[in-house]
């Protein structure tokens, strides 16, 4: 604890002279990213906003439409702002931004169960054995460090508790998980019952009462507690803390993104990216439409469409879409065959992802399927999608990092980036 830095009470220095506290400068919280300087390829994107559709989003009823095919069921298609690019009628607002987007129509995966598919999509590795693999946000921080030292390197906004996070990487590069976007960063404001002076007094006092213990034990773990309190105070006083506070956004903005948790999460994502958080994931659940697909998908799409269109428009207006890549992904698609309950079941064989901005040439469709059943052109796997994101961020795709069990891993596990869409 280093009270001098935070003390505001004029009377405290007298105490300090009686009980000298170990003078400790606040150490860097995170370890330096990597010792070896890397030569990354030229990046096209600085930030990524990764929208994860949890449960398996039906490709045919969203972005992987096949106009006129019997597999479409009752879903109709719409023309979009890009010539020759059509998407589902469930996404009328997003249709206006397809000139910025590339539909990746030929995704295919080997993982047909939720947990496995989700893990594969997030890490490029299959869920097996005793290794937990890092996700893109953690790779980014590991390779390139934080862009804003007072904010986390990456953030995940989700109600789900199974995000693989930093995998085997150290905790310092782990994405910060925010469960409720409206609540912002947990515990970052002082208790209402305390005045600023009260809190400062207590922090300073805490340092003094801790001195004996701090100096008695020479342990890294002991010292780091005095460091994290200094860091915590910095965070509290940081101007960037407002990045987490979406109440600072005008009502109009809230209305634009939508009042549901996903819309608010997208709004928070934009604020975080503005303040230097470079990878933000927002998840939207409920896509597991085994029954009543044609009722439930339009409901989900309404939420997605409003938030996504708001996000794309907002980024575009702020001039941020060029270097911010917005990615839409899901663990798998859904069966082209409609089941007896008007539902669609899990279908990893062919599905769709979309990328907007971040340096891609918009208005394209990449890859083809036969009525959403089989990929017939330009097959893409989840590692390929992740390699494309990593490529855009300028991450070295072939740089090997060893887990603590000394096994070698790379970002995107040898997936091939689709360089032709940039």
């Amino acid at each position, binding site marked *: *604890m280093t009270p001098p830095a935070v003390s505001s009470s004029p009377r405290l220095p007298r105490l300090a002279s*009686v*009980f000298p506290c170990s003078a400790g400068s606040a150490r860097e919280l995170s370890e330096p990213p990597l010792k070896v300087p890397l030569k990354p390829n030229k990046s096209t994107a600085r930030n990524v906003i990764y929208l994860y559709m949890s449960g398996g989003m039906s490709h045919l009823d969203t972005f992987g439409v096949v106009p006129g095919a019997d597999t479409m*069921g*009752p879903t*109709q298609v719409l023309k979009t702002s890009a010539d020759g690019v059509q998407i589902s009628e469930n996404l009328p607002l997003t249709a206006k931004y397809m000139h910025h987007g590339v539909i990746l129509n030929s995704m295919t995966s080997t993982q047909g169960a939720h947990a496995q598919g989700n893990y594969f999509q997030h890490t490029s590795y299959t869920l*097996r*054995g*005793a*290794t*937990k693999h890092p996700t893109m946000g953690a790779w980014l921080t590991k390779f390139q460090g934080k862009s804003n030292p007072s904010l986390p390197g990456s953030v995940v906004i989700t109600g789900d*508790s*199974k995000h*693989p996070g930093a995998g085997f990487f150290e*905790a310092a590069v782990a994405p*910060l*998980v*925010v469960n409720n976007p409206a609540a912002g960063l*947990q*515990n*970052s*404001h*002082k*208790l209402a*019952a305390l005045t600023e002076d*009260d*809190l400062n*007094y*207590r*922090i300073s*006092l*805490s340092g*003094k*009462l*801790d001195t*004996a*213990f701090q*100096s*008695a*034990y*020479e*342990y890294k*773990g*002991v010292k780091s*507690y005095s*460091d*994290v*309190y200094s*860091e*915590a105070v910095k*965070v*509290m006083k940081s101007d960037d803390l407002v990045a987490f506070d979406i109440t600072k956004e005008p009502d109009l903005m809230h209305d634009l993104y939508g009042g549901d948790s996903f819309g608010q999460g997208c709004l928070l994502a934009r604020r975080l990216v503005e303040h230097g958080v470079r990878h933000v994931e927002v998840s939207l659940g409920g896509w597991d439409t085994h029954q*009543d697909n*044609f*009722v439930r998908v*339009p409901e989900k799409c309404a939420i997605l469409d409003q938030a996504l269109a708001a996000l794309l428009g907002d980024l575009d207006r702020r001039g941020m879409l060029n270097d911010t890549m917005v990615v839409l992904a899901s663990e798998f698609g859904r069966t082209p065959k409609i089941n*007896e*309950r*008007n539902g669609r079941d899990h279908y990893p064989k062919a599905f769709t992802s979309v990328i907007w901005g971040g340096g891609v040439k918009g208005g394209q469709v990449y890859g083809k399927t036969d009525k959403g059943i089989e990929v017939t052109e330009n097959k893409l796997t989840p590692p390929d999608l992740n390699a494309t994101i990593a490529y855009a961020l300028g991450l070295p795709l072939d740089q090997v990092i060893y887990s603590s*069990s000394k096994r070698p891993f790379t970002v995107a596990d040898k997936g091939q980036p689709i360089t032709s869409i940039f």
Partner: protein
Amino acid sequence: MKTTQIILAALFSAASLHAASLPESTKIDSLLKQEWEKNKVTPNAPATDTVLVRRLYLDIAGRIPTVEESQEFVNSKATDKRAQLIDKLLNSDGYTSNMFNYWADILRLTDNTKGRTAAEAYAEYVKRCLKENKPYDQFVRDLITSEGGVWDTGAIGFYMRDDNKLDHLAYTVQVFLGTSIVCAQCHNHPFDKWSQKDYYGMAAYTYGMDTKGTALAETKGKGAAGKGGAAVKGMTKEERRKFIAAHQAERDKAEEEQKSKGITSEDLAMVKNSLKDIAKPLRYTIAKWSDNKLPTLPSDYKYPDAKAGQTIQPKTLFGHEAVAAEGQTRLNAFANWMAAPDNPRFTTVIANRMWKKTFGLGLIEPVDEMTDSTTPSNGELMEYLNQLMVEQKYSLKNFQRILYNTETYQRTANVKEVPLGETYHFAGPILRRMSAEQVWDSMVTLAKGNVDGETSEENEQLHTYLGDMKLLVDTMQDKGIMGLAEIAKRSNDGTDKTAVLAKMDDLRKQSLAAQNAGDKEKGKQLAAQAEKLRRQGANDLVTAMIGDDRAREMRQNYGGKKGGKNKGAEVDKEALMALSKEERKLAIKMGTTLSLNHRASEISSPAKPGHFLRTFGQSDRELISNSNDEASVPQALALLNGPASEVLNNPLSKLHQALNAAPTTDEKLEALYLAFFSRKPTECEKAVIAQVVAERGDKAVADVTHALLTGSQFLFIQ
């Protein structure tokens, strides 16, 4: 510098060693003494009673002692009071709770999984084994040989934990044999001697355990169509032909039975439909063993010692072969081979784990990556601990009792960290940060006192639910699908079920048509109507099978356990009545912010991300021993700005009441130090505090409380 010396002297004021003279403890001490002499190490000074009482409570019961508890010990004149306290704590419910957290991290217990019922039954099972002090070797054998329904034993949770049985085997070998073979799942191990074929040989022992089935598949007469898919997979052509032929005969018989009972195919469709609806709670509830199922090498197998696709016979990694005796499955043989004194690693792993748990560092590090070249930091001691574990018949309680009664454990914690890779000669235990659960449980102790008694290895709600489930499954097995159709007919309250079924189909078709025509709203309404009819049909059947009350419970599905689970803050009504109106208002307001009412082992486990426990490093239970004790900014923020300090200052908290009862400020502050650190403040601390009192007056007590909570000292086990 001088101040530091004074402080050190205050912290480590003279104490003498008076460990009980258990002969085994003395033997350990003498082995360590040889080591010290050989390496010219001076052992640490004996720890004082105040240091020791806090350490023993944290290490054994998983929490700090209350003021009453620590004072009772410190003031006791009994010469064997340390041995007495160790015994008392080992027999407390706090021990069960603490050990549960320890094993939950190693075994990756989680209720954040597909089979929630199985997960909770497993957690309860582990707690019960710890409370009973089931010998560790028996515990491991019971886990490995567990099978049946979740209503039979919670131990099947061991297998239910992992879908992939190849992965599960790697975890099993790592946890119980301290050997990492996971690399060899896909290729020969690059740093150890294990080949991919070795891996499959080991996996062959447990490969026959199927956890993907559902109790529904057990329904008689469900026919080949029902379970054929899974069953046929992995069969040879010949077996498949036989299987299908047998089922054809079954099907013919079924048709005859159906005719004779006047059951129409619509009746059967209705029953099947209904069963689908209750299938969800019945999924992931059965582990089924088949002795003839063996793994085959993957299609990309690339070594000359075997061929891709080849079936692999069980073969042990080390030690003798595991041969099944007459009437035993190979699973029994595997369990007996593993959990035996003559297994080269089984005993060492658990003895070393317990040593590390007690002293903070293993004689072998890491504890679960042993290879042939692994040498313990003190070979003679390791050998003795192995012998001791066998002598104590794998009683972890007895084993720990011996360790806690050593003079070495009762010395002060090492003031210096042991650098990575350096040999430590155990001059005393290592200073450790509390585990997340210990931090939480200590805060609960400050707020509520001793709540160990609520540690429950009996989950009544779960048992009621499992009972209902068993009745349902038994009824299904007993009656078969024809019988169920009869029940369904009998339960018919006059409505024509066939007509209902037809109506449901019709509604679905209309819904699709409406959507095709572009009328979304109408489509949605019709779909909802169809769904309602379907649910109703399922409900009627379940009610007819197991009665109204039980059916209602089943329909609601299993909601989760007892106690603090998912409960908001609870307010003690009696305590509330004793307060003034103002205090009551404050208490209610504050009591709703952070629920420091139940021990970590009694609430959702693992807690959700963002929860206090996770912030302090509770494992997500995705990997073996995935908890961590690193400091982080969110931890600092949680203690600075989170509700913890307010909860402790809440009029209902035990700490607040104790402070209130102390008449003078000095006594209040002394009470505070006793509560946090089981000791009185030192002279230096008193001087600081005196100044705080002078400066802050009424605010002083709350200031000091919050300051102690946010200091590092509270979080460490000295």
